[in-house]
């Protein structure tokens, strides 16, 4: 009995040992943008939602300059502390910042136990600060809006899977390089304009929306959204819910490597501008698609090899298929490895009419 009493007494005396954080009183960040500042500093822009108990959510943005991400916090003297990054949804980088490397800023999020790993990392064409401070008419604030935009682009659109964890995975992994979404803003609109290609943590190239679609299909087995295909006879066909099955075959990876990317696609036609969808026109659509993906894919692969980056993780595929794989040799050989893409398209359904 006396143990119980002593326990109760002790646990009562222990309350309030740690600082409490009340959600109505602390600033919660959903989005942060980093741009190049003056004298090697980093300009950080945040957008903040404060929850008013009886009104709608209020959004404010703040700008500060410092050398590190956490250093920016001290500069944000107009903000109540502590700042919570537990709900951070999107981390943006201006293009000039991305070209110099982003890992220094991301370290803060990878190191902090409070930060999530499903956060999106994206590059903005132009300045990320402008994008955040711009007065868009998004009801829920720019952070949650962008999170939704990117999430749906991955789930239902043509964007390959990406988030902070996958960036970190590829940054540290051998034989692979990360890709992150590329955003752009036009006046009062934010949109996805493709993918930014990274070499380690530095942006070295871009893919447009069309290329992003091809990339998503040949990178790994996946499902993409809608694609408009121009046919040689001047007609157009729209393909939807395209599922790809991808196999990488790497032979002689340690000596004279060669790579075969075998892609099997299944898609449905949801729109067709021609007269009637016959068997012939279907096979024509399939062939045009095959040719298009092969050509574009090869062009992309060539570009990757010239840039010395490996967003398709071919090096990792080579490792998984080769005993005693030698990475340093692979890096030497990679720019000249012959890579073949073999696409086979199956047209499944074509809606409820012919």
């Amino acid at each position, binding site marked *: 009995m006396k143990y119980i009493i*002593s326990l109760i007494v002790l646990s009562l005396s222990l309350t309030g040992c740690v600082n409490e954080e009340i959600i109505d009183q602390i600033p919660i960040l959903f989005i942060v943008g980093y741009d190049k500042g003056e004298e090697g500093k980093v300009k950080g822009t945040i957008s903040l939602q404060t929850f008013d108990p009886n009104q709608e959510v209020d959004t404010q943005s703040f700008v500060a300059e410092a050398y590190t991400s956490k250093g920016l916090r001290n500069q944000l003297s107009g903000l109540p502390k502590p700042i919570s990054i537990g709900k951070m949804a999107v981390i943006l980088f201006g293009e000039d910042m991305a070209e110099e490397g982003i890992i220094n800023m991301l370290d803060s999020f990878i190191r902090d136990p409070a930060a999530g790993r499903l956060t999106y990392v994206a590059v903005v064409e132009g300045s990320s600060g402008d994008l955040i401070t711009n007065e868009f008419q998004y009801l829920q604030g720019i952070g949650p809006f962008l999170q939704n935009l990117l999430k749906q682009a991955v789930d239902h659109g043509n964007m390959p899977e990406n988030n902070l964890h996958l960036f970190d995975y590829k940054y540290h992994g051998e034989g692979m390089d990360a890709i992150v979404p590329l955003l752009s803003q036009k006046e009062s609109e934010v949109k996805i304009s493709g993918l930014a290609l990274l070499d380690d943590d530095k942006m070295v190239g871009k893919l447009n929306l069309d290329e992003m679609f091809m990339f998503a299909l040949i990178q790994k087995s996946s499902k993409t959204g809608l694609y408009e295909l121009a046919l040689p006879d001047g007609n157009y066909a729209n393909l939807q819910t395209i599922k790809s099955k991808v196999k990488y075959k790497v032979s002689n990876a340690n000596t004279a490597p060669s790579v075969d990317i075998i892609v099997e696609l299944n898609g449905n036609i949801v729109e067709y501008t021609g007269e009637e969808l016959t068997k012939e026109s279907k096979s024509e659509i399939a062939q045009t698609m095959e040719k298009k993906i092969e050509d574009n894919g090869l062009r992309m692969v060539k570009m990757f090899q010239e840039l010395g980056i490996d967003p398709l993780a071919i090096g990792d595929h080579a490792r998984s298929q080769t005993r005693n794989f030698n990475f340093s040799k692979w890096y030497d050989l990679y720019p000249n490895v012959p890579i073949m893409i073999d696409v086979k398209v199956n047209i499944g359904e074509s809606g409820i009419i012919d």
Partner: protein
Amino acid sequence: MEKDKQYSLLISPFLIMFVIHSNQIGVGILGFPRYIEAFAGNDSWIVVLITGTVFHVFIWMMYRILSEGNFDIVDLNNKWFGKWIGSILNCALMLYLLLGATVILRTFIEVIQAWMFPELATWIPAAIYLLLTYYVLAGGFRTVTGICFFGVIIPIWLAFTAASPAKLSSFSNLLPIMDHSLMDFVSGTKQMTLSFLGAEILLLAYPFIKKPKNSRIWAHMGVGLTTILYTMVMIVSLAFYSSGQLQQSIWSTLIAWKVVELPFVERFEYIGITFWCFVIFPNICLNIWGASRVGKKVLHIKQKYFVLILITIVFTVCILMTNRDQIDYLNTLASKIGFYFYYIYLPFIFLYSSIWRRVKKRI
């Protein structure tokens, strides 16, 4: 032998499974993959299976050692090596168990401090844990076993959370299989031994089992369950992380929980760590219970008072450890002693007991 021990103070044979399993799983599972991966790379899961098999052999050895009569290791040490050497061995065993309790408690408090409450003073969770430990130990071994049972059953659902990181994983990371040298496997197994430590509690708990000879299958199942869990965590970790990423992650299992998405909670780790309190608790109870058993028999102090002394020691050491390096040192020390315990002491007394028995038979 304790003749006054009543039948009602003993535990059912199947409960030894929970005792062994709960003592093996501790804080190690939250971060062990990177230490194994450093040696065996993508073959690390095979190392886990090898170590699991080795521990089945150890369990078999322990049952052979204990097979005669109803003694625990303390009695046997005294019987075989005489009062002096036996007592030294027993005291060493006691210190080892005490070290085990300290390492687990302090490392788990470090997790709480690193992840949940950076400002939390060490003594607070240490005091709460150790007072609870005293409360449980005051109830005797059956209560401790009950804690072990619930320490396994309550958090077992956490195993299903592996599905979330598995969705983001690329399982081709496991290929090509068996791409490492024998030496890598040996070093990995040596490293992995730390995570399997805890089965030695059988040497002390044996006299408390009803029909102890029938309990062997359950002890093996305890180790088997541990092996399954570790293998699962290892495979998911290998597939979820790239090699370099795993090497930089101190608590890889906790970090993997960051991608668990639930509608009502943003950070699953907080729930995971909270439930881990149930996993840690049996470890502390069992280790301190074991140490107090040894103390009772060697030093002839009443267990009730000796537990208090032990708890004070654990508490003091815990609050003296203030940074990662010291905790790491303590972990390495415990792992080294544990390694020698299993690979030198245990085979030695196994042989010794076999020879002793044979010699006795002849006389």
